[in-house]
């Protein structure tokens, strides 16, 4: 079957969909891949070539010096200076020249006729042979040559070592985890309880309460930052404790995440089959047992999908952390540390790329370990059975 026929069988709409998906995936994966590769590259190579050349050798021009008169030997009628221009450095000489304007005038391995009976050949391993029919009269420092040196790709963990130990990223990584884990777990727990009550316990004003919770979703975070911080300061002053603490930011993230969490989980939990819950009730379970033994296990997809949302949001958050936690070293979160690095070490790409990759490592892990629940959880409430 010809390719045209095959494509025709797939059909244009599906072809467009597949193509679009491919483009979107490529667009999203490329930068990540770039950061990932760059973060392992040698910092000198990183500055001269792009990450996509990382797996081939990179070529650059260098200046070198031949040996001085002290190395001159006489071999019959000719005078020879020989040695190695690379002097033990790695790499391979691709071309060489004797003038700065034409550093790659001759290919490596060929013999260059420099006039006056002087000839120079440099092999790709750097070994050179400089000959003359008359004794060399140059000064003692040796002749300058220009080399096109190809260096093999160098991959190193040094960037990570520097970043994690030297630049404070390691500490802020721990700080970020300290913020993100409780700020994910607390709202989920609270929201699950609330969602159960809002869907399976009948009490007066339930609908109104739910409407209020849903209404809170639209409150913009930025609007509540300052009043909340003032409240924190007042409470801090009143109790004689600092206002910028981990407990404070956990509470802040919990508060900002709860409305959406309750709404999402409630939509899922209300869709659980009524008979299962009634059956448990007849079996002798109270509300708390129904919640812990039946509703929680069955809501795992919804819990996981919200956990991803909340964790990623908290992990990537800079604003709330700056306001409620501050920028002291033992409290600076990863996003804050990256932001600071960008200012102070903006030119050091190897530092930036390694730090950036450290910061996306955890979200990637979280996402891949829970992603099968994400899809199911997002469908929560829309399709019976989720």
């Amino acid at each position, binding site marked *: 079957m010809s390719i045209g026929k095959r494509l025709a069988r797939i059909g244009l709409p599906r072809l467009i969909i597949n193509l679009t998906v491919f483009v979107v995936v490529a667009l999203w994966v490329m930068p990540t891949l770039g950061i990932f590769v760059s973060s392992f590259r040698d910092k000198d190579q990183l500055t001269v070539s792009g990450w996509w050349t990382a797996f081939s050798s990179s070529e650059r021009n260098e200046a070198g010096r031949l040996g001085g008169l002290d190395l001159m030997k006489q071999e019959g009628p000719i005078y020879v200076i020989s040695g190695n221009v690379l002097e033990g450095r790695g790499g391979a000489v691709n071309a060489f020249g004797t003038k700065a304007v034409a550093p790659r005038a001759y290919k490596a391995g060929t013999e260059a006729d420099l006039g006056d009976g002087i000839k120079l050949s440099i092999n790709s391993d750097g070994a050179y042979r400089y000959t003359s029919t008359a004794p060399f009269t140059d000064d003692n420092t040796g002749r300058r040559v220009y080399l096109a040196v190809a260096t093999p790709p160098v991959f190193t963990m040094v960037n990570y070592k520097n970043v994690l130990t030297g630049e404070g990223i390691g500490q802020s990584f721990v700080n970020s985890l300290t913020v993100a884990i409780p700020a994910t777990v607390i709202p989920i727990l609270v929201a699950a309880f609330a969602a159960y009550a809002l869907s399976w316990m009948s009490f007066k004003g339930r609908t109104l309460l739910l409407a209020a919770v849903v209404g809170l979703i639209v409150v913009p975070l930025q609007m509540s930052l300052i009043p909340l911080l003032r409240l924190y300061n007042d409470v801090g002053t009143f109790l004689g404790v600092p206002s910028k603490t981990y407990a404070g930011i956990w509470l802040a993230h919990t508060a900002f995440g709860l409305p959406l969490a309750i709404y999402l989980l409630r939509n899922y939990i209300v869709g659980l*089959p009524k*008979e*299962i819950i*009634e059956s448990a009730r*007849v079996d*002798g*379970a109270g509300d708390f*047992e129904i919640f812990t033994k039946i509703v929680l296990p069955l809501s795992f997809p919804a819990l996981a999908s919200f956990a991803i949302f909340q964790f990623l949001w908290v992990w990537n958050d800079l604003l709330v952390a700056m306001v409620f936690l501050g920028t002291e070293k033992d409290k600076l979160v990863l996003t804050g540390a990256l932001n600071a690095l960008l200012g102070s070490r903006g030119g050091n790409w190897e530092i930036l790329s390694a730090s950036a990759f450290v910061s996306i490592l955890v979200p990637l892990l979280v996402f891949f370990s829970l992603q099968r629940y994400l899809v199911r959880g997002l469908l929560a409430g829309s399709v019976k059975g989720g």
Partner: protein
Amino acid sequence: MASISLRKLNKTYGALTVVHDIDLEIADKEFIILVGPSGCGKSTTLRMIAGLEEVSGGDLVIGDEVVNDVPSKDRDIAMVFQNYALYPHMTVYKNMAFGLMLRKAPRDEIDRKVMEAAKILDIEHLLNRKPKALSGGQRQRVALGRAMVRNPEVFLLDEPLSNLDAKLRGTMRAEIAKLHKRLGATFIYVTHDQVEAMTMADRIVVMKDGHIQQVDTPQNLYDRPVNMFVAGFIGAPQMNMLPVTILRDGQGFVARFEGQNLPMPGNLDQSRIAAYEGREAVLGIRPENFHEVAPDDIPAEALAQMSAVVELTEPMGSEVHLGLTWAGRPITAKVSPRCKAAEGETLNLLVDMSAAHLFDPKSELSLFSDAPQPRGIAA
């Protein structure tokens, strides 16, 4: 003791009343079936007994305790739901053990009871499976098993067989009946399927629009329906209802239908018929009371001749259902497959009037019944 009394039981949702003043005495170890069309309040009644719906009015008594406000977990009942309602995240064993675990029963006792129930229901090999790996019939057994292990005084079953295919339903019907005898518990069973009701019940409660129409044994319900609703609901195909006028004919009476006199034989209560002399009534004749040849056990004077046009034949294998037009009225007759009636043909049949029913056209009550008129029936 697990007798159950429903005393003037009511269920209202706002202005809507779905169960009206239900009075019912259920004896210990009885198999009671609530039957009726959709929305008749039978499931709501069951759910009130289960404690899943609040009682809006009246008293619900289990044993000799009023349990209106007793939570369902303290009522010593077990319930089997229509869609089984198994816990999808637990194995069959855990599903069955759940109730006992909640009651903190000792582990070996749980084990023994679950194994015992599994053995009775023949699901021992499924104990480690999750519900989604079971077929419909197996799930139903697990649901029954889950109810059994708790050894409750009262079993409540809410249309437990309606999600099964016809063949399996027949098997499970027999098994539930067997289970009832074996367990010696009170069974209250809700269904809309009159075959289930007729085959399993000690007594059937026929409900309509939140009112009890009649409570009686299956055979009595069939033989002596108290009103047109019960007469039409029990028995398939439905009883034929014909408008007639009661006329005196010498010593006895006849029902005059479209110019034809149908005898009212002596086994029908003549004094009650006499009260309707000259008045209109509704004559009810079951499809099986039409005969091609006179049966030996029915006196000739009880048989009335009729001729009707065959509109439709439905061979059922063991019998044939005929859709007929008798004097402009559509009726259904059940005859033997030997009857080779062809559609469009005029057929002569004999009607067994000794099995006839008579109803008041206004109150819809049977003339032969003493039952008080149930409320909610259009008067």
